[in-house]
């Protein structure tokens, strides 16, 4: 079981565990081209799930071996070392050691090494080899290495390590057939290579051996790696062990990697002097970010309208075919509207992940972080938080999903927690109707209206910075953060990788978040429909429904904010999605929706708002109430989809519940300060 080398009798292509397909773990440093290789091996036969209890993603796929047999491949998170400094790296180590209960120890390992940076990549590779599993080394990006005047001798390396070494070119399929052949080998050897230990540590290792219970259970090859793991955890020897490993690596590289003694200016050097230039760096970054934002904001608009139209039509068809009744209403207003409400996010998610995929795969994304890190670190965030936050101004859903490019778990969590403060496009209809209600259009210049709108965006941004700063202080203790960041070599992005990522993200969103969103949509539909009132007037029905009753019930709570129960209904309904506020108000104030003329029905609603008074005869929608409402919408987390996505991304209900609570409380007190403060100052 321990070494495949001794099992010559196993027929090729068959696992020695009966008919169970063999399991290969795919490991390597971040940016080693591991993911691209995984995609080429498995195509879209991939499955993404979460490792239980952590937010690390578990990627698995099926490759076809040389004899047509299926081979399971587990794509482990990228890691620099077996001494973990992040949850990702911890998972990687634990899987390789067979320590995880949910996943048995892989049968063999494919370890990817970047040939242009062999020494550093061999650091992890030699650690992995010492674990004693049959291993294939993939020497990736040999074409780039040649361009950098590095001469490579894979055979020499294979000789020294005692495992197959397969040269491969970046993004090209050369080497793939050879890898398949090696993967189907039933006599795949484990490496006998191990880094000689410094004297005094060697003595200690003997002791560890004897006391290591895992060693007692498993064969000889496995234990030294495990025992060495224990040693590596000892701080005092750390330096010597790392140095010893690098010395051994220099021996390995001496014959197999020969660097010409000329200074080579690489493509990466030249691109960086442009992309990280004091002046042009900013121009290029602004252009990239602007096109990203415009694409999400406007490019997503047309497909989103198309989707809304399609689901509207589907609703009409059902309306025409089914007999009137609650069931029909459930199908049209609950299910179809709910499914539509899920699918409608897809265009923006696809666009964001197209951009992120291109930037990640080409190597530009870490440069963005490099340029912006100083700015973001002022509030305790990382440069990598910038792109998710920026995209959240279009929609928080893709923004939160985009936080997975942030390596540090704490930075990632803080970013997720503050992201929904960015004023997304769903807030615009609310801002718009409130602004036109505040200002009588006839007299007020457009500039004032635009200024007020800008103020709302600025307020949300302020919320991001303040709370990021607070959370950074509070969450600091638990995590040590290595904030050294690699700037990988640039390479041509692979379209397959980008498309695979877009496909995977959309699928996950629909499957995981979609079901929650649909459930909440149906629940909210029911709250707005039941109990039924006998009065055909929709305004009476709205008041009589659960949502209406909740509106009444919370009136004492929202009164200090300047709202009455009718606004309460709008706020309650908005917890599904903010833009629902406007249609809820239409129902409450009995203003028919005019599909043909949006401006006209907006105008009518505004007129109605102006005429509505409180019991004492003063106007309900006074400028102060409108302002207080807008401020409430800036801060409150009124978006079921966001809650569902945060649940999915943090893998627990704890964080979405916390986020919902603190944001809504912030909204409440901020709105109250506006209303009460304004009243104190004598405004109405």
């Amino acid at each position: 079981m321990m070494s495949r080398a001794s099992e010559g009798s196993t027929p090729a292509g068959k696992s020695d565990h009966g008919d169970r397909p063999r399991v290969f773990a795919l490991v390597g440093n971040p940016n080693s081209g591991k993911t691209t290789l995984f995609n080429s091996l498995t195509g879209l036969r991939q499955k993404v799930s979460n490792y239980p209890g952590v937010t690390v993603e578990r990627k698995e796929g099926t490759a076809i071996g040389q004899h047509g047999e299926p081979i399971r491949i587990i794509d482990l998170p990228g890691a620099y070392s077996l001494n973990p400094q992040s949850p990702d790296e911890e998972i990687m180590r634990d899987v390789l050691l067979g320590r995880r209960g949910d996943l048995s120890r892989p049968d063999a390992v494919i370890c990817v090494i970047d040939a242009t940076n062999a020494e550093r990549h061999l650091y992890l590779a030699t650690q992995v080899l010492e674990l004693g599993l049959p291993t294939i080394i993939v020497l990736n990006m040999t074409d780039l290495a040649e361009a950098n005047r590095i001469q490579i001798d894979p055979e020499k390396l294979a000789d020294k390590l005692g495992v197959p070494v397969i040269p491969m070119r970046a993004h090209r399929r050369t080497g793939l057939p050879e890898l398949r052949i090696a993967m189907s080998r039933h006599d795949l050897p484990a490496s006998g290579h191990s880094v000689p230990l410094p004297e005094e540590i060697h003595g200690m290792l003997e002791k560890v051996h004897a006391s290591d219970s895992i060693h007692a259970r498993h064969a000889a090859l496995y234990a030294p790696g495990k025992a060495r793991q224990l040693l590596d955890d000892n701080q005092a020897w750390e330096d010597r062990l790392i140095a010893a490993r690098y010395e051994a690596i220099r021996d390995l590289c001496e014959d197999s990697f020969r660097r010409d003694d000329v200074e080579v200016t690489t493509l990466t050097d030249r691109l960086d002097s442009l992309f990280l230039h004091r002046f042009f760096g900013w121009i290029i970054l602004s252009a990239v970010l602007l096109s990203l934002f415009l694409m999400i904001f406007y490019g997503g608009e047309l497909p989103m309208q198309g989707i809304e139209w399609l689901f509207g039509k589907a609703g009409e068809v059902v309306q025409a075919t089914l007999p009137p009744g609650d069931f029909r209403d459930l199908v049209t207003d609950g299910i179809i509207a709910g499914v539509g409400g899920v699918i409608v996010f897809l265009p923006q998610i696809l666009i964001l992940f197209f951009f992120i995929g291109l930037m990640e795969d080409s190597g530009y994304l870490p440069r963005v972080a490099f340029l912006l890190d100083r700015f973001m670190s002022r509030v305790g965030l990382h440069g990598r938080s910038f792109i998710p936050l920026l995209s959240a101004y279009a929609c928080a859903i893709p923004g939160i999903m985009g936080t997975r490019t942030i390596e540090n778990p704490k930075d990632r969590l803080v970013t997720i927690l503050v992201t929904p403060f960015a004023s997304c496009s769903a807030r615009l209809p609310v801002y718009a109707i409130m602004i036109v209600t505040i200002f009588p259009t006839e007299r007020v210049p457009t500039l004032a209206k635009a200024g007020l709108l800008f103020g709302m965006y600025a307020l949300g941004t302020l919320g991001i910075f303040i709370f990021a700063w607070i959370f950074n202080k509070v969450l600091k203790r638990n995590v040590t953060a290595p904030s050294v960041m690699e700037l990988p070599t640039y390479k041509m992005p692979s379209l397959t990788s980008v498309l695979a990522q877009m496909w995977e993200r959309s699928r996950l969103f629909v499957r995981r978040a979609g079901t929650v969103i649909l459930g909440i949509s149906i629940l909210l539909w029911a709250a707005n429909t039941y109990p039924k009132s006998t009065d055909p007037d929709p305004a009476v029905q709205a008041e009589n429904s659960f949502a209406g009753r909740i509106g009444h019930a919370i009136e004492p709570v929202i009164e200090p904010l300047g709202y009455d129960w009718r606004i309460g209904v709008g706020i309650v309904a908005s917890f599904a999605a903010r833009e629902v506020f406007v249609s809820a108000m239409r129902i409450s104030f009995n203003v028919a929706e005019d599909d043909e003329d949006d401006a006209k029905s907006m105008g009518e609603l505004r007129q109605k708002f102006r005429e509505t008074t409180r019991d004492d005869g003063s106007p309900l929608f006074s400028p102060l109430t409108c302002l207080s409402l807008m401020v409430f919408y800036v801060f409150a987390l009124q978006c079921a989809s966001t809650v569902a996505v945060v649940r999915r991304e943090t893998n627990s209900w704890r964080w979405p519940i916390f986020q919902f609570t603190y944001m809504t409380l912030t909204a409440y007190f901020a709105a109250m300060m506006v209303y009460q403060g304004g009243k104190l100052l004598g405004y109405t």
Partner: protein
Amino acid sequence: MKDSSQPLSRLPVGTRARIASYLSNDAAFRRFREMGMLPGSEIRIVRLAPLGDPIEITVGASLLSLRREQAEMIAVIPEQESVTRP
């Protein structure tokens, strides 16, 4: 030898230097060593980010970005022009 060492953060862009020691025992610095920044290793300051922080350095064939506050914890010995490079 020890006297000529100074924090990595003070080096001007383009300087080559050898790492002397780490001034902090923080576990976070282990990753720096594992990425090849061992005492004795040669590094070069490639550039500063346009906002002055972080600092980009090269170690072996890697380009690394580190924040100024960490660079202050790494003592280096700048290579004199007169010293012949191998």
